[in-house]
């Protein structure tokens, strides 16, 4: 556990070497998403920071502060705490937006960016309106395989999962904060001055965001691999391999 930006964060540091921070996505996610997929592979040769975003996993769940500005400040404070600079930032889905905005705010602190399934505009990250109007059946169809499996088995794990998701969606400002996020303009994206990997699934609804990012960011490459939006569980080995190749380049 680590105190940063006024909250207690659940953190994990794995491995030794050049620093990398891995940032997970919103609501149905926490640092375990990285811990059981690409993180152990990357940590063979690098120092890897994992953390639960505010309100997620074992990090404290404040009522407010789920906007990008606050979540970027959270990450900046954690990087300071672990003295990680310059650092390669890897963000999955909304985590990619945190990484991107941190690079824009503190370009001297970031060596590389990997954006995995990162959506634009940011307000699409949880498809806020659609999400709140979905029936349980529709929501399950739109969820990752791991969530479908958990829910279909029922029992203790499903109950805990629903409780934590309900608390985040119903008892915090998260949905409202994300829905209010403005788009990031092309002019702003053109200022990103480090190498960027845009990694997307060939059947993902976010692929168009990847095309836009790779066209507008000055030093970006687009890698499209087999899978949907939930690439970390669809293709964990391939994601780790693409990230390794990008870091070694």
């Amino acid at each position, binding site marked *: 556990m680590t105190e940063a930006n006024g909250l207690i964060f659940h953190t*994990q540091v*794995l*491995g030794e070497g050049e620093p990398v921070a891995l940032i997970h996505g919103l609501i149905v996610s*926490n*640092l*375990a*998403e990285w*811990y*059981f*997929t690409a*993180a*152990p*592979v990357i*940590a*063979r040769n690098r120092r890897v920071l994992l953390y*639960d975003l505010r309100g997620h*996993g*074992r990090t404290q769940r404040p009522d407010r502060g789920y906007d990008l500005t606050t979540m970027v400040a959270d990450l900046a404070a954690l990087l300071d705490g672990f003295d990680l600079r310059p650092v390669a930032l890897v963000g999955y889905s909304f985590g990619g937006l945190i990484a991107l905005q941190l690079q824009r705010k503190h370009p001297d602190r970031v060596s590389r960016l990997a954006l995995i399934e990162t959506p634009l505009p940011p307000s699409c990250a949880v498809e806020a309106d659609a999400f709140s109007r979905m029936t349980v059946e529709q929501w399950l169809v739109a969820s990752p395989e*791991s969530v479908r499996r958990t829910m279909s*088995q029922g*029992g*203790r*794990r499903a109950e*805990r*999962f629903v409780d934590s998701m309900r608390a985040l969606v119903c008892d915090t400002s998260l949905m409202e904060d994300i829905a209010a996020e403005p788009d990031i303009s092309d002019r702003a994206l053109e200022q990103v001055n480090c190498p960027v990997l845009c990694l997307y699934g060939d059947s993902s609804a976010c692929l168009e965001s990847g095309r836009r990012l790779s066209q507008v960011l000055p030093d970006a490459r687009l890698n499209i691999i087999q899978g949907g939006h939930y690439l970390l*569980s669809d293709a*964990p*080995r391939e994601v780790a391999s693409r990230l390794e190749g990008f870091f070694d380049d």
Partner: protein
Amino acid sequence: LITVSAFIREVIGQAWVKDFVITMDTSFNTDLELESIEFVELAEKLQSHYEGRVKFAEWLAEMELDEIVGLKVGQLVEFIVRCQ
């Protein structure tokens, strides 16, 4: 097995697990219904207990996701013994 079982009970922290018989054949997924974040917590506690001699990340790096999902308590105990 006694040490690992004690930490599993601590991580789950619910009344039912106090009397649940944990064996080498107990599955983290189907028998204990451990959440993935709870497994991370368990790894943290064991790592701290064994003062870093147990390298979970290196062990997990060798496994496919399906193998991790199918892990049994005995496999974790055997791995810890190998690290000593």
